[in-house]
């Protein structure tokens, strides 16, 4: 076998409805997914850990609640896979790094707690690029994840395990984190839906920090509607996250099924050929998406986002700078790996040298350099100014347009090993997704057909902050046109 795509996907909403009505039990539902994992996980390697016993216990609790006539929640009995950089109490959380050495967090991430309260069955921890740094899931200390559409290809990254788990039918829902595209790009490469919410819209409490001003947690699903439902469950104010937004957004499912008549869509010309490196085939497919939205009644026009030209450079200064600070906590003192030395300094050096992989070391050094005396203004300071220009560009566009459109990834899934030795080539994978992170806006990737290699292509819809309902509305129309 060279691929592992199921004949059909069951929607999370139908599972929850069937479990709540007693038509099928959460336990039976879970076993179906565990069977799928049993059959194909050895080829895909989506998971660092499948938590079979804990999942069965959660499913039994839901079934008990249902039998007593209780309300099991909007995700009753829905198996959910969790990216392994989100804390799960008592269950190893590794960030796919040697340095955490099977660390068991003493608490659940807020997102994990909310999923459980909504009746979800947490099924396991998914593989990622170490500390979410990468675009292929090849930078995992535990080996790469393979694309379920073709095992010789990467699933994208860094949330490649979560994307692959949903594509392979190991779980109807998975959770990832997106710092520069780490949910949307693997969603695109694996042919599933992936969402980066508004910064501050979903709690980061219990997410192992990579770049704190860019990181955001979000869902993977097989449909736009399922993604919106899960987003409603995991979103909302959390006093444990100091950047959590207090105001409640309008429900994300409100505008589903409304059509897009007279909505205004801007097509970002810099990401449709203006910047080198985006494949002709992907641009052609994005143009078909434009036609589809136009046919559905939207007013579609080409727009310019001039600062997009500088986003890749700005991001690869800002994100490593924040990472170099965030990852200083891994020092062999409070958790994870310790490699002894003759004094504290030597122990710190030995631990970090042995515990971190190459990509993490590169980014820590790059960030340290960008923040160091003499280079701060030239690199980090300038990058923060580009960020301001970009925010102003977006604000201008959203005066006239409801949403913006671009490809998600500049190419379809590439071969394992093809780009991993050349960091700059790998970084270009994030060129379309980075702008949303720099300004904290929401964006979604929706599958929209396949390339000549038979691999999925995704289209990205970008929306103003806290305006996910219109993002989902347009994405749903695109989803219907693409299938």
């Amino acid at each position, binding site marked *: 076998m060279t691929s592992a795509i199921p004949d059909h996907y069951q929607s999370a909403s139908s599972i929850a409805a069937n479990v709540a009505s007693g038509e099928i039990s959460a336990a039976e539902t879970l076993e179906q997914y565990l069977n799928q994992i049993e059959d194909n996980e050895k080829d895909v390697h989506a998971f660092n850990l499948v938590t079979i016993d804990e999942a069965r216990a959660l499913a039994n609790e839901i079934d008990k609640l249902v039998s007593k006539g209780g309300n099991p929640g909007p995700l009753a009995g829905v198996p959910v896979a969790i990216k392994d950089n989100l804390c799960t109490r008592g269950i190893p959380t590794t960030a796919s790094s040697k340095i955490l050495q099977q660390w068991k967090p003493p608490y659940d991430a807020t997102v994990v707690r909310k999923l459980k309260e909504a009746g979800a069955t947490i099924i396991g921890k998914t593989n990622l690029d170490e500390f979410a740094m990468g675009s292929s899931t090849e930078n995992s200390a535990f080996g790469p994840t393979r694309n379920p559409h073709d095992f010789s290809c990467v699933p994208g990254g860094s949330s490649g395990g979560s994307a692959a788990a949903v594509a392979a039918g190991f779980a109807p829902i998975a959770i990832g984190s997106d710092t520069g595209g780490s949910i949307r790009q693997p969603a695109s490469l694996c042919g599933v839906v992936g969402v980066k919410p508004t910064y501050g819209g979903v709690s980061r409490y219990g997410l192992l920090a990579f770049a704190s001003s860019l990181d955001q947690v979000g869902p993977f699903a097989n449909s736009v509607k399922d993604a919106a439902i899960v987003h409603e469950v995991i979103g909302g104010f959390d006093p444990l996250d100091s950047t959590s937004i207090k105001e409640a957004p309008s429900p994300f499912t409100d505008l589903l099924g409304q059509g897009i008549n007279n909505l205004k869509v801007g097509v970002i010309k810099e990401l449709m050929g203006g910047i080198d490196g985006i494949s002709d085939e992907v641009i052609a497919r994005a143009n078909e998406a434009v036609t589809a939205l136009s046919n559905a009644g939207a007013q579609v026009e080409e727009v310019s986002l001039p600062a997009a030209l500088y986003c890749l450079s700005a991001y690869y200064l800002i994100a490593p700078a924040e990472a170099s600070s965030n990852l200083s906590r891994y020092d*062999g003192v409070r958790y994870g790996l310790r490699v002894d030395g003759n004094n504290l300094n030597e122990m710190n050096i030995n631990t970090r040298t042995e515990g971190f992989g190459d990509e993490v070391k590169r980014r820590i050094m790059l960030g340290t350099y960008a923040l160091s005396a003499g280079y701060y203004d030239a690199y980090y300071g300038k990058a923060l100014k580009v960020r301001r220009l970009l925010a102003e560009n977006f604000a201008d566009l959203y005066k006239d347009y409801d949403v913006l459109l671009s490809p998600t990834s500049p190419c379809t899934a590439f071969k394992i090993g093809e780009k991993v030795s050349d960091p700059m080539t790998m970084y270009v994978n994030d060129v379309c997704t980075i702008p949303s992170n720099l300004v904290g806006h929401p964006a979604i990737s929706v599958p929209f057909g396949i390339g000549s290699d038979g691999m999925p292509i995704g289209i990205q819809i970008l929306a103003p902050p806290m305006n996910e309902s219109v993002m989902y509305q347009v994405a749903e129309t695109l989803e219907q046109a693409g299938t």
Partner: protein
Amino acid sequence: MMSEPITPEEVTHVAYLARLRLTEDELSRFTEQLGAVLTHAADVEALELDDVEPMSHPLPVENTMREDAPQPMLKPSDFLNEAPAVEDGRFLVPKILGEQP
């Protein structure tokens, strides 16, 4: 632009600041790879942006304080159980100055 965006000496220094040790092979590889990223970043470095305010964060948040009231918390043992070395309810570290006895 400079002929060499970053030198091996600078990479060694930055690695030490980040508490990392590099082999000779790693030093030459990382010098080249970091140089490629910094060369790409030259487009940002070259921009004239004197009038632009830097933006460090997407949200205009001020300090976020909770009410100063007692709340349930994790016990010290919840954390210490996962530490590499512990003594008398505290994290244990090697000698801070000089060699171990």
